[in-house]
């Protein structure tokens, strides 16, 4: 029964099932114990039964009460510690994952593979390799739910949320939206297709529209006039974007922020929010001009810019 029902496509799912089974066992024991005690007392001490009543045994005193209070508290805190240990292990993201962008929109999932392949309501991913989903939503809160991997994460508008997994069993599994997002909420489902790395490589190469994201990003960078200010040769005093991604940036109001996707996205859409130290806030906002697909391309381009400090 376990595992067959929602399917288990990753080592984590297997661990999860064992952990769930142990919790079920503990609960079943406690429920059974209480059930037996209740039924036992009800039958044994029903009115007029011959069971011994008389004096109440001394053992039933406050100590008994305090002891089972302490026992329950210690048991629950132990359960918390045990749960936290497994959870801490899994919130550390994998090294160099395969980054797949997921865009949730009212009642469909738009997935963009690293090589630019686009899919609707389908998520193809290789097995045996760390995969990371960088997710955002265009309208309301959705939630990507992969029951076979025992994973779920809400997809919030205006912000990136992340989900990472390392699958180990190819196959076709469910993909649900699990946060109420409107009329088509129950139709916003799809397929998680896990393939062996070879099949995945063959599949992604064969897809139409496979183009280098970074190259597409460079074209947009030029067409929107970003290069007009940010190119080293330009006369305008604007921050140099080479190798900016992943490094620390000193801001005008004294804060130091790490240039992650969220920072780059905010700098493009809300430039006044985090102005770089030593620069005037003259950058226009590109909100409404750069949509989420172009954002993914621009992001890929900015990540690909070589940093002077460490040559790739």
């Amino acid at each position, binding site marked *: 029964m376990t595992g067959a029902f929602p399917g288990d496509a990753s080592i984590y799912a297997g661990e999860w099932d064992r952990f769930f089974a142990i919790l079920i066992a503990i609960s079943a024991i406690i429920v059974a114990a209480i059930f037996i005690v209740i039924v036992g007392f009800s039958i044994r001490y029903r009115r007029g039964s011959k069971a011994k009543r008389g004096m109440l045994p001394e053992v039933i005193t406050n100590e008994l009460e305090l002891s089972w209070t302490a026992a329950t508290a210690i048991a629950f805190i132990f359960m918390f510690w045990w749960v936290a240990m497994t959870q801490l292990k899994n919130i550390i993201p994998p090294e160099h994952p395969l980054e797949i962008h997921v865009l949730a929109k009212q009642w469909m999932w738009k997935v963009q593979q690293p090589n630019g392949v686009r899919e609707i309501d389908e998520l193809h991913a290789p097995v045996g390799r760390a995969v990371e989903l960088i997710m955002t939503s265009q309208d309301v809160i959705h939630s990507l739910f992969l029951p076979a991997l025992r994973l779920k994460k809400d997809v919030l508008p205006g912000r990136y949320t992340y989900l990472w997994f390392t699958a180990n069993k190819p196959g076709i599994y469910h993909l649900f939206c699990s946060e109420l997002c409107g009329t088509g909420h129950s139709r916003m489902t799809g397929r998680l297709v896990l393939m062996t790395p070879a099949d995945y490589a063959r599949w992604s190469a064969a897809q139409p529209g496979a183009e280098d994201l970074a190259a597409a990003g460079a074209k947009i960078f030029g067409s929107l006039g970003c290069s007009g200010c940010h190119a080293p040769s330009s006369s305008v005093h604007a921050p140099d974007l080479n190798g900016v991604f992943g490094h620390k940036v000193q801001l005008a*109001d004294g804060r130091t922020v790490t240039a992650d996707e969220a920072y780059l996205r905010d700098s493009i859409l*809300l430039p*006044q*929010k985090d102005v770089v130290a030593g620069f005037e806030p003259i950058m226009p906002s590109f909100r409404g001009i750069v949509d989420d697909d172009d954002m993914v391309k621009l992001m890929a381009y900015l990540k690909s810019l070589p940093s002077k400090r460490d040559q790739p």
Partner: protein
Amino acid sequence: MSETSPVLREPWPSVARQRMAVSFGMWVFIASEVLFFGGLFLAYAVYRLLDAEAFRIAARETDVFYGTTNTAILLTSSLTMAMAVHGAERGFRRMTIRCLEATIVLGLVFIVVKGLEYHDDLAKGLWPGPDFALHPAATQLFWAFYWIATGLHAVHLSIGIGIVSVITIRLARGTLPIQATAFEGVALYWHLVDTIWIILLPMLYLVGRA
């Protein structure tokens, strides 16, 4: 004059017990009001944490003059309400009536000054929405809180003025005895509304002045 309603109400064994219950009940209600406005203050604090710069830009648009005069008016009304309760405790009917009337007048003056300020704010186009005057989008969040917080406070103040007017009229007409337990409760409510404004002043008017 219709007969005076009894001081001692239905379930109470003694007036002293009833008086204590009215105060206690009002304090429990005040705890719920603190959490009602507390929810709004949490939202304000979170958004100020997320975008402090926009809050500074937006807060400079509020008019400190109006804010300060209004605070002074409300503090004075607290004084007159406190004196009304002192008078009621000692049975000085005329003094209590005059203090309650002063409280009502001060409350109305506050509302009028607030109205003038609202008129100026609307003229400056500070109602959050598509055609909002200030530039960074997050300033609309500050002004959304400005309108909601001062609006809610004005509603609470108007309810306060209404209740104080009722007990003043009934006291003047004699249908409410001077020893009634209502005064203490109404005074506590009035001081609550004043305390909320005291907290609102630094939140809305004194941000980003330096």
